[in-house]
Every structure is written in structure tokens, then in C-alpha cells.
């Protein structure tokens, strides 16, 4: 009798745990009216587009000029968790995101949740976009819908067990998804703009900050450099502990790709510069000002 009761309690307990896990791990979209009253401006949206670096991953690797606006996906990103393939985010109604509302885009960018309610992998940098303004997302949505639709189907990610269990990403989000600023304290208006560009839209930390074993950014080593996720080379420390460039040097690098020694950006950073070159100079200067305010970490932590 006592045993039976214990089994019942145990079953109830397990059921409760499963329920709690289901609730905790379930996707957490924004409220239905989160975008209510916001009107997207496609002209402002183009600036958001370049600041957020969408084309860096979603256009072809070799895209030049207007080809950067054909967001058909297909670039492959190797990582310790598997190879991710950038999806088609052109406004094609079937192959791309043509049927998405601005709220769908906001849920994708800020919560890592698809319109079907599925978790995205954090290769899509929602851990940074979580800090994005809803108005900017409305503007970006308006701009994306003006781009050429492309029918190329998205390719599946090549991710093996256990990382192919998407429900587990709910746990990842519990641990690592936050819209708090990394650098806090008294910032000038320019530094605050730079923080928004670096920590939110520009998602610089995704590559420049080392990750722990579960793939979460180690915020105490913010921008302190990390092994390249594909295993080739090392992404540099850009805190003042290692990067001794002047603000003008940083602005020049984000404009032309040239370092103070006239070396030029290589690899994925060359793609980043192709995006930042489209920003107003004041935004590049804001990024430079912010980088000088990041807590310095000595080279190779």
C-alpha cells in the first residue's frame, strides 16, 4: 500500500517535472501585440540591414554590389556542433520569408522562434539581436520585403545527435539568452549608440567572444577573442587589452578594410567590412568609441 502510494507520488512528481520542463523549454514568443502601432520605414530599414549584417551570411559569399540583396542562403558554417546552412530569407513567399509579418521577424530575431513555433539554432545570432529595438525590426522587415524574391530552397542543417534535439535549445536560451547590455555604466550618447551597434545589431560578440562548452558566450571575456568556430585560426581580441588602434584606425578599417599597416581584412571579417562600409560614418565612429570602453582583457586569455 505504502509502496503503491509512493509510486503514485513518484509518477505525479515526474509528470510535474515533465510539465515544468515542457513549459521552460517551450519557445517563448513575444506577445501578439508587441509590434502594434509600429510602422516600418524601408529607408531606415536599409541602414538596419547593413548594421545587422544580414547579407554577410544570407547572400552568396562572393556577392558584390546589388547581389548582396539576393538573400537566398546557402553559405555553410562549420562549428563544433555541426554544419549550419544559412536559409533563404528573400521575400519569396514559399522559399523565403515573404509570408512573414513584422512580428514573425521580431520573434525570430529577439526570441529565436520561427513562425511555426520552433526554436532556431543560435548560429542565427538571436543572442545578440535579442537587444534590438522593435522599431528597427519593423523597419528592417519593411526593407527586406522590397528585395528580390529568390526561389532557391533552404538546405537542412547538418547537425547530429544530440544537438538535433531542438527542444534542448529551450534550455540553452534559459541559460544564455538575455537582452541586458554587456557593458554598463555611464556611456556618452555616442558610446551608447556604439554599444547598440556592437552588442545588438552588429552581433560582434558572436565571433569575438569565447564560448563555453555549451556554446554560450562567456560574457566576462566579452570581445576577448576566440578560436574560429570552424577550427581554422583565431578570431582576435578587440578589447583595449589587445587592440591598440586609434578610433580613426578602427573607422578606416570598418570602411576600407585596411589596418593601420595596410594589411586588409580577410575571411568572414571582409564580409563584415562590406556591411559596415554602408553605414554612416557617425555609426562607424560610434563603434570605435564603444570599443574603447569595453573592459580590457589581456591578449590570449
Amino acid at each position, binding site marked *: 500500500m505504502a509502496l503503491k502510494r509512493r509510486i503514485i507520488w513518484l509518477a505525479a512528481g515526474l509528470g510535474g517535472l515533465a510539465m515544468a520542463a515542457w513549459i521552460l523549454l517551450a519557445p517563448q514568443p513575444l506577445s501578439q501585440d508587441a509590434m502594434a502601432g509600429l510602422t516600418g520605414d524601408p529607408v531606415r530599414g536599409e541602414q538596419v540591414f547593413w548594421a545587422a549584417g544580414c547579407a554577410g551570411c544570407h547572400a552568396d*559569399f*562572393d556577392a558584390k554590389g546589388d547581389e548582396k540583396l539576393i538573400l537566398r542562403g546557402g553559405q555553410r558554417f562549420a562549428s563544433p556542433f555541426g554544419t549550419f546552412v544559412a536559409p533563404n530569407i528573400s521575400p519569396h513567399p514559399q522559399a523565403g520569408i515573404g509570408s512573414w509579418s513584422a512580428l514573425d521577424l521580431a520573434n525570430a530575431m529577439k526570441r529565436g522562434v520561427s513562425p511555426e513555433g520552433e526554436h532556431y539554432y543560435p548560429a542565427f545570432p538571436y543572442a545578440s539581436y535579442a537587444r534590438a529595438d522593435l522599431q528597427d525590426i519593423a523597419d528592417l522587415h519593411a526593407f527586406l520585403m522590397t528585395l528580390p524574391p529568390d526561389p532557391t530552397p533552404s538546405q537542412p542543417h547538418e547537425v547530429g545527435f544530440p544537438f538535433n534535439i531542438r527542444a534542448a535549445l529551450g534550455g540553452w536560451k534559459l541559460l544564455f539568452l538575455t537582452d541586458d547590455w554587456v557593458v554598463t555604466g555611464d556611456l556618452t550618447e555616442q558610446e551608447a549608440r556604439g554599444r547598440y551597434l556592437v552588442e545588438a545589431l552588429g552581433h560582434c560578440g558572436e565571433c569575438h567572444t569565447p564560448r563555453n562548452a555549451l556554446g554560450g558566450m562567456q560574457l566576462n571575456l566579452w570581445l576577448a577573442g576566440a578560436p*574560429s568556430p570552424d577550427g*581554422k*585560426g*583565431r*578570431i*582576435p581580441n578587440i578589447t583595449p587589452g589587445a587592440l591598440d588602434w586609434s578610433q580613426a584606425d578602427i573607422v*578606416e578599417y570598418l570602411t*576600407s*578594410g*585596411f589596418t593601420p*599597416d*595596410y*594589411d*586588409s*581584412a*580577410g*575571411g*568572414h*571579417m*571582409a*564580409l563584415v*567590412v*562590406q556591411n559596415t562600409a554602408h553605414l554612416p560614418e557617425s555609426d562607424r565612429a560610434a563603434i570605435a568609441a564603444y570599443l574603447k570602453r569595453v573592459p580590457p582583457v589581456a591578449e590570449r586569455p
Partner: protein
Amino acid sequence: MKKLFAGLTLAAMVMGGAGLAQDKPPFAMEIKARQGIMAYRALNLGRLGAMAKGEAEYNAEAAQAAADALAASAQLDESLLWPEGSDHSANPATTADAKLWDIETDYDGKHTEFVNAALAMQQAAGQGLDQLKAAMGPLGASCGSCHKATRIPN
């Protein structure tokens, strides 16, 4: 017995030699030569860039000299510089990615783009500051397009 001893000594010498050869990282000379040529290009490009940005006063003669040097370095015979396999995985002293040798990367096409941009700069640099500035854009883009495709971060 003597023969065996001699044979063992010879074998030891050969193995020792092989050991020595392995102490030197592979492709060290090629990588050093590549990096030297790149630094030479950067030095001359820096002279032109400083004028373009207004950090140095425009001087037609100095600009022409730098552009001549850059164009000459762009046209060097590179046939010994890039043996297949001389990438970062073979020797971490280089940031060359193995992709450099993929057909799709079209290294030769990108190199031609750079040579043409350097020749255009050679034509422009002595003509005036505006001409120099205009030639700077395609030149920088040609550096970037190859580095984007063939370099790993470091």
C-alpha cells in the same frame, strides 16, 4: 660486421638528416617570401593611402614611385610562391586557407584583378590627388576579395 656497422651508421645519418629536415617547418621559405612581398606591397600602399586620406601632403613624384613599386611587385612571377598544401594546416606561420587552391576560389582571376588595379594606380598616382583617390577604391577591393576567400583569421 664492418659492413653492418657502416650500414647502420649510414641509416642513422639518413634518419638523423630526415629528423633535421622535419625540424624546419614545411614551406618556411615560400611563406617568408609571400609575407615579404605582401609587406612590401603594404608599405607602398600605405604611402599612397596616407596621401589619399590627407595624412600626408600629395606629392606626384612620391606617389608615382610608390605606385611603380606596387605595380612591379604585383607582376612578380609567383609560380614558386604557392605550392599546393602550403596552407595554415601545414604551417601555422601562414594564414593562407586551403581554399586558396580550390578551383572555385579562382585565385588566378582574383590575382589578375589585383594586377589590373595596381596598373591602373600606376597610371593614376602621378596625375593628381583626385585620380589617386579614385584608383584606391578598386585596389583596396581587389586586396579584400582575395583575402576574403583565402585567409583564415589570426
